[in-house]
C-alpha cells in the first residue's frame, strides 16, 4: 500500500516540479521566477524524503536538510538582488 | 623513510600559509621568508637531482598507501631535472621581484609565488594522473593571481581570457581523466602503463580518445598551435618577474607530454598507433614558425618575448614529437636553455619598462636608458641565446635538435623550418634591440638634467638577477657535454620504463593492522 502511495506521490511531486518549472520559465516577473525556484527546492525536499522512504535509508536526510536550508538562502539572495542589487550590503 | 621528495611541495605550501597567516603585514619579513623558502627548495632540488643522477628512482607513498591505491610521488631523472630547473629559475626571479619592487605593487605576491612553486613542483613529482590535474590547478590558479598582480585594465582584460582559456583546458583534462579511469579503472601512472598495455585490441577507441585529449591538455600548457592562443597576450601583460616564472610553466606541459607518451602511451604501443604521428610534428613546426614570425611582427618588446616563448615551445615540441631518445634528450637540453633564456628576456623587459621613458616597450625613439650598456649587453646575450646563435646554449640546443631529427623522414622540413625561423628571429631581435637600445633621442640636456634628478636610483638587484640567469646560460653552454650525457641517460631511462613501473607498483605500502581490532566490529 505504501508503495502505491509512494508511486502516487512521486507522480504528484514530479508533476509539481514540472509545474514550478513552467512558472519559472514563463515568469513573467523576476519575483515569479524566484518564487518558482523556491517552490522547486521545496518540492525537491519532498522528493528526496519520499525517496528515502522508498529506499528505506537515512542516507539522504542531510541532502533534504541542506536543500531546505540552501533553498532558503538562495531565495533570499535572489530576492535581495532584485530589491537591493547588493546581496550583502 | 626519506621525506625529501615531498619537501618541494610541502615547503612552499607551508611557507605560503605562514606568510599569509603571520607576516602579511611585514614586507621585509615576507621577503626574508620567501627567499629563505626558495633557497631551501633549491637545496632540496639539488639534492634530489644528485640522488637520482645515478638512475635511482625515488618513491614516496603518501599516507603510506601502496600504489596504485594511494597517491605516490616519484622522482626519477626527468622529474628531478625539472624540479631543479624550477628551483634554479625561482631564485633569480624572486630576487628580481624584490629588487624591482614588483612584489610590493600588489597583495600577496610572495604567498602566490610560493603556491605557484608548489603547484609546478608538485606537477613534476607526482606519479598519479589525477593528482597531476590537481597540481595543474594549483599552479594555474596561483598563476592567475600572479598574472593580474597589481592590476591595471590591460592585465584584467587579458587575464579574463587567460583564465577562461585555461578553464577550458582544465575541463578537457577532467574529461580525459574520466575516460582514462572508465577504460582502465586506475589513476596511477605506472599502473596505467601496465593496464593500457594490457587492454584488448578490440576496445581501443576510448583509450585513444583519452590519449589525445591528454595530449591536447598538455599542448594547451605547452602552447602548441592551435591551442597556444592564451599565451602571447597573457605573458606580455604579466608583470616581468611573473612572466619570467611562467617560463617554466609551459615546460610543465612539455614534461607531461614526455612523461605520458613515454610511460603510458609509448611510441611503439599498438593500440595508440597513428594517433598523432601525422600532425604533432607539423603542429610543432607551425608553432615554431608562428612564434618566430611573432618575434618579427611584434610591436612591443613584451610581445616579442612572449612570442619567443611560443617559438621556443615549438622548437621543443619539434624535438619531442619524434619520440626518440635522442629527440627527448635534445628537448631536455633545449627546455633548460629556453627556460633560462626567456626568463632573462622577460626580466629585461621589466627593466626596460621601468627605466625607459615614453612608450617604454614600443620601438619609437625615446631618451636613452640609464645604464643602457649593461642592459643592452644582457639583452644581446639573451637574444643570441634565444635566437640560437653561437656561442650560447641556444646554438647547442639547435644543433642537438637538428642532429636528433636527422634520421627522421621529415628531416628536410624540420631543418628548413628550424633554420629559416632562426633567421627570422635574428631579424626580429636585431630590429627590436637596435630600436630600444640604440635608436635613442639625441639626449636633450634639460631632459637629461631633470631625469638625473628625478630618476630613482636604479636598483642593482634586478641586474644581479638577470646577470645570474645569463651566467647560468653560459654555464649550460660550457657544460653542454656533461648535461647532454645526463639528458641522454634521462631519455634512456624514459624509454626503458620497467624500473619505474616496478619501483612504483612493487613497493609494499602499509599493512592494515586494524583488521585485528577485536574490540570493534564494523557495525
Amino acid at each position, binding site marked *: 500500500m*505504501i508503495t502505491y502511495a509512494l508511486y*502516487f506521490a512521486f507522480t504528484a511531486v514530479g508533476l509539481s516540479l514540472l509545474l514550478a518549472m513552467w512558472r519559472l520559465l514563463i515568469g513573467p516577473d523576476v519575483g515569479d521566477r524566484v518564487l*518558482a525556484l523556491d517552490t522547486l527546492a521545496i518540492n525537491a525536499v*519532498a522528493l528526496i524524503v519520499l525517496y528515502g522512504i522508498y529506499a528505506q535509508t537515512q542516507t539522504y536526510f542531510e541532502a533534504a536538510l541542506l536543500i531546505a536550508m540552501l533553498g532558503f538562502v538562495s531565495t533570499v539572495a535572489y530576492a535581495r538582488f532584485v530589491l537591493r542589487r547588493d546581496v550583502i550590503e | 623513510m626519506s621525506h625529501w621528495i615531498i619537501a618541494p611541495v610541502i615547503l612552499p605550501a607551508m611557507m605560503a600559509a605562514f606568510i599569509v597567516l603571520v607576516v602579511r603585514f611585514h614586507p621585509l619579513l615576507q621577503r626574508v621568508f620567501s627567499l629563505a623558502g626558495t633557497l631551501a627548495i633549491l637545496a632540496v632540488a639539488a639534492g634530489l637531482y644528485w640522488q637520482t643522477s645515478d638512475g635511482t628512482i625515488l618513491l614516496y607513498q603518501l599516507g603510506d598507501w601502496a600504489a596504485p591505491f594511494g597517491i605516490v610521488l616519484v622522482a626519477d631523472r626527468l622529474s628531478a631535472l625539472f624540479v631543479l630547473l624550477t628551483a634554479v629559475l625561482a631564485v633569480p626571479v624572486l630576487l628580481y621581484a624584490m629588487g624591482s619592487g614588483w612584489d610590493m605593487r600588489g597583495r600577496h605576491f610572495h604567498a602566490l609565488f610560493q603556491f605557484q612553486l608548489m603547484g609546478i613542483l608538485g606537477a613534476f613529482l607526482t606519479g598519479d594522473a589525477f593528482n597531476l590535474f590537481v597540481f595543474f590547478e594549483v599552479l594555474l590558479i596561483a598563476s592567475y593571481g600572479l598574472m593580474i598582480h597589481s592590476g591595471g585594465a590591460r592585465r584584467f582584460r587579458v587575464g579574463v581570457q587567460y583564465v577562461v582559456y585555461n578553464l577550458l583546458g582544465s575541463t578537457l583534462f577532467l574529461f580525459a581523466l574520466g575516460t582514462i579511469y572508465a577504460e582502465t579503472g586506475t589513476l596511477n601512472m605506472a599502473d596505467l602503463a601496465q593496464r593500457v598495455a594490457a587492454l584488448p585490441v578490440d576496445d581501443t577507441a576510448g583509450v585513444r580518445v583519452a590519449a589525445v585529449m591528454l595530449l591536447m591538455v598538455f599542448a594547451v600548457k605547452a602552447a602548441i598551435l592551435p591551442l597556444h592562443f592564451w599565451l602571447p597576450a597573457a605573458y606580455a601583460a604579466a608583470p616581468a618577474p611573473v612572466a619570467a616564472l611562467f617560463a617554466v610553466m609551459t615546460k610543465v606541459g612539455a614534461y607531461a607530454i614526455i612523461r605520458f607518451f613515454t610511460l603510458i602511451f609509448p611510441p611503439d604501443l599498438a593500440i595508440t598507433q597513428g594517433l598523432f604521428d601525422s600532425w604533432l610534428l607539423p603542429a610543432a613546426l607551425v608553432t615554431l614558425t608562428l612564434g618566430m614570425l611573432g618575434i618579427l611582427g611584434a610591436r612591443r618588446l613584451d610581445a616579442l618575448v612572449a612570442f619567443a616563448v611560443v617559438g621556443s615551445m615549438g622548437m621543443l615540441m619539434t624535438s619531442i614529437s619524434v619520440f626518440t631518445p635522442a629527440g627527448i634528450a635534445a628537448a631536455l637540453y633545449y627546455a633548460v636553455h629556453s627556460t633560462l633564456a626567456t626568463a632573462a628576456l622577460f626580466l629585461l623587459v621589466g627593466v626596460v619598462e621601468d627605466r625607459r621613458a615614453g612608450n617604454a616597450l614600443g620601438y619609437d625613439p625615446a631618451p636613452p636608458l640609464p645604464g643602457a650598456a649593461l642592459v643592452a649587453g644582457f639583452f644581446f646575450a639573451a637574444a643570441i641565446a634565444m635566437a640560437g646563435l653561437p656561442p650560447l646554449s641556444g646554438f647547442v640546443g639547435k644543433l642537438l635538435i637538428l642532429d636528433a631529427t636527422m634520421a627522421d623522414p621529415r628531416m628536410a622540413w624540420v631543418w628548413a623550418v628550424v633554420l629559416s625561423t632562426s633567421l627570422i628571429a635574428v631579424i626580429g631581435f636585431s630590429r627590436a634591440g637596435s630600436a630600444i637600445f640604440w635608436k635613442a633621442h639625441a639626449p636633450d640636456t634639460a631632459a637629461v638634467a631633470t631625469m638625473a634628478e628625478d630618476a630613482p636610483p636604479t636598483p642593482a638587484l634586478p641586474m644581479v638577477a638577470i646577470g645570474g640567469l645569463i651566467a647560468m646560460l653560459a654555464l649550460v653552454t660550457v657544460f653542454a657535454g656533461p648535461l647532454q650525457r645526463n639528458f641522454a641517460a634521462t631519455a634512456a631511462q624514459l624509454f626503458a620504463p620497467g624500473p619505474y613501473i616496478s619501483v612504483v607498483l612493487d613497493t609494499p605500502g602499509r599493512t592494515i593492522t586494524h583488521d585485528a581490532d577485536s574490540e570493534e566490529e564494523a557495525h
Partner: protein
Amino acid sequence: MSAAAEIFVSALIVIGAVFTLVGSWGLVKLDAPMSRLHAPTKAGTLGVGSVLMASMCYAFIWRDGSAHELLITAFLFVTAPVSAMLIAKVAIFRRTNVQELPPPPTDTTWATHDTGERAIKSSSASENRGGNTATPG
C-alpha cells in the same frame, strides 16, 4: 497494527503529495503575482511537512525510529514566511504603486517604497567601517 499503520503512513504520503501538487498548481494557475505567492508558501510547506511526518512515522513503525525529519519541518516553517515576505517585497517593489496599497494606519509609507533618505542612510556601508581585513600593511 500493521495495516492501520500502513494506511496512516500512506495517507500522510498522499496528503503531502496532494498539497505539494496543489501548491505548484496554484503557482501556475493563479494569475495575480501576489496571489501566486499564497499557494506554494503554504500548501507546499504543509505538503512537505506531511511527507516528513510520513517518513518519521515510517521510521518509528518499521525501523529503529527517527525524529530528525522534524528538523526539516521546523526549518521550512521558520524560513517560509521570510521567503514569502521577500518575494512579496519584490512584487511590491517592481509592480505595485504606493496608491494601490492601503495607507499604513500610523506611519508614512510602506518600507519597500521607503526609498528616501532614511532608507539609504541606514542601509549602506560607510567609508571607515569596512571589514576587519580592510587595510593590511
